[in-house]
């Protein structure tokens, strides 16, 4: 799951990026509004964390441009502006949520899960295709009676597949959801992660479609 973080304060940006990576998100971090627009035009993100006071182009401008292009990616505003008018304006411009600085990381992560879940049309927090279920909070995967704790990247991989059961994801699509821009990707990283998940949950959990990619089965 890939998140765009737009934050000009280097210390906050760094810290949030670390926290998101800990929670198994791939993070692209940009520091100004213009780069944010560029990033949104050129890559697919599952959510955006957007500061309002940004150099070059304000967060509000980035947001209204994004919604003007009919891009429906979930956006959470993270801002130190506590005035009710600011919050109302941001929500009316198309933000999905507004989080006031300073915030608790756990709360940020919970809100992030919530907006992503809503965008996927799901009500239940746990992802499932009827065979395998995945809890985004605990990173615990279940199959039948056995529960397994997944590593951050294994979780990211399985989550990407379970978000769209029945759809085939290519290697590069998977890599995009697991790794941020500046992270080095080893050539067989995806194979390695799939191997890990299959070992824990059973070989038929993730199906390989030769020449096309990988998928999990649709619920029956």
């Amino acid at each position, binding site marked *: 799951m890939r998140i765009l973080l737009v934050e000009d304060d280097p*210390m*906050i940006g*760094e810290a949030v990026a670390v926290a998101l990576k*800990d929670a198994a998100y791939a993070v692209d971090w940009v520091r100004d509004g213009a780069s944010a627009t560029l990033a949104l035009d050129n890559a697919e993100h599952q959510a955006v964390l957007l500061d309002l006071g940004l150099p*070059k182009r304000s967060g509000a401008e980035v947001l209204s441009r994004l919604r003007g292009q009919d891009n429906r990616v979930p956006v959470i505003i993270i801002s*130190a*502006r506590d005035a009710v008018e600011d919050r109302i304006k941001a929500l009316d411009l198309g933000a999905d949520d507004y989080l006031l*600085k*300073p915030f608790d*990381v756990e709360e940020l992560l919970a809100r992030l899960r919530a907006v992503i879940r809503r965008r996927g049309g799901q009500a239940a927090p746990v992802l499932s295709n009827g065979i395998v279920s995945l809890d985004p909070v605990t990173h615990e995967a279940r199959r039948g009676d056995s529960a397994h704790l997944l590593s951050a990247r294994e979780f990211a991989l399985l989550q990407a597949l379970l978000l769209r059961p029945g759809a085939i994801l290519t290697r590069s699509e998977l890599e995009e959801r697991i790794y941020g821009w500046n992270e080095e990707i080893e050539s067989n990283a995806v194979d390695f992660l799939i191997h890990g998940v299959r070992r824990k949950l059973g070989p038929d959990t993730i199906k390989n479609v030769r020449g096309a990619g990988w998928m999990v089965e649709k619920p029956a």
Partner: protein
Amino acid sequence: MRRSLQRRLSLTLAFAIVLTGLIAAVTSFGLGYFEAQELQDDSLRQIAALVARRAADAGFKGAPSPDGASGDNESRVVVMRLPGDARPAWLPENILPGFHTLDDGPERMRVLVRRLPQNARIVVAQPTDLRNEIALNSALRTLVPLILLLPLLAWLTARIVATELAPVRRMAHRLDGQAPDRPAALSETDVPDEIVSFVHAINRLLERVSQLMNEQRRFIADAAHELRSPLTALSIQAQNLENAESREASKDRLTALRAGIDRAQRLADQLLSLAKTQTGTTEQAMIDVSAIVRELIAEYLPVAEARGIDLGMEEVAKPSLSGSPDALRLILGNALDNALRYIPSGGEVTVRLTAEGDDAVIEVADTGPGIPASERTRVFDPFYRLEGSSGNGSGLGLAIARDAASRLGGSVILQDRPEGTGLVFRYRQRRADAN
């Protein structure tokens, strides 16, 4: 003693009225008295004329009747026709015709002697006590309206003064009722001309006060906003440290947390410095500028070395300044801190001491990217940051330097470095040894 305008006006006006009233009273009393006397002399003259005519007609022989006829004391008049040289005992010999006031008889008398033909005389006399009483009574009657009017006048004066001064009282009341945090200008309508300029002055003061209040309010709002950033960083950094899975990761995250704490600490320090420069006392001491510059350079040398910046000093003159050494330390310390924070590593920072005329000039020159001319005023505003600058500064350094400079009676400007790129921070103050 307080000087109440209304009291003083009322009192002085009342005094003036009473005084003129008194003068009027005395005059009218005197005139009335004199007039009454004249009137009585006239009636004596008429009596005499009447008696003379009747004497000529009927050979009237009046007998001296000093005690008068009837009992009405007020009209007691003695009329005598004296043949030849006959006279009562109280009438002096050889008295000439005309009016006389006689003191020698049993009582004081006013006497009119009139000569008749055939060597006879008519004497008409009246006791002066009686006359005076009549005159006094009639004079006193002229005083009555005046005396009745005096309290009315005094009351009217007090009322008029109070009414005319009412706008001043109302204005004071309105001023008292103002909210202290947002004073509003006083209205100039229905204010007397003499007070309008005063109202103008008060309004100008109120405007300056509310401007200052606005600045302070904005500053506090900005400061609260600025505090959120380091706190946000700290809270996430602490949580990241808690979630660290490896020893190596915790070490990295602890370093980040320390940096966050340093940043919060620095912001708190800078806020405190700013508060001090704004309220501090104006200490007057001789400042050894080159000693202070050397101390500061020693203090910042580790930072400069860590960033690979060549920090040095150039002493062209040895100016001495008077004022607070701490204020100068704040000015130059913030200039050095900015220079070392914002220029790329491998650069050069030089503190230069010179003199220009009567002024001492201390420059902190760097080889950094400089600041565009259009931004050189705004960067002195609290929390203003240049676009794209790293957000770890407090945003207060230059504001502190400017406030401290104005406390010292000096000034701060930013300039381009004459040779190559870079910024020069220039502090200028009148030398202590200037004439």
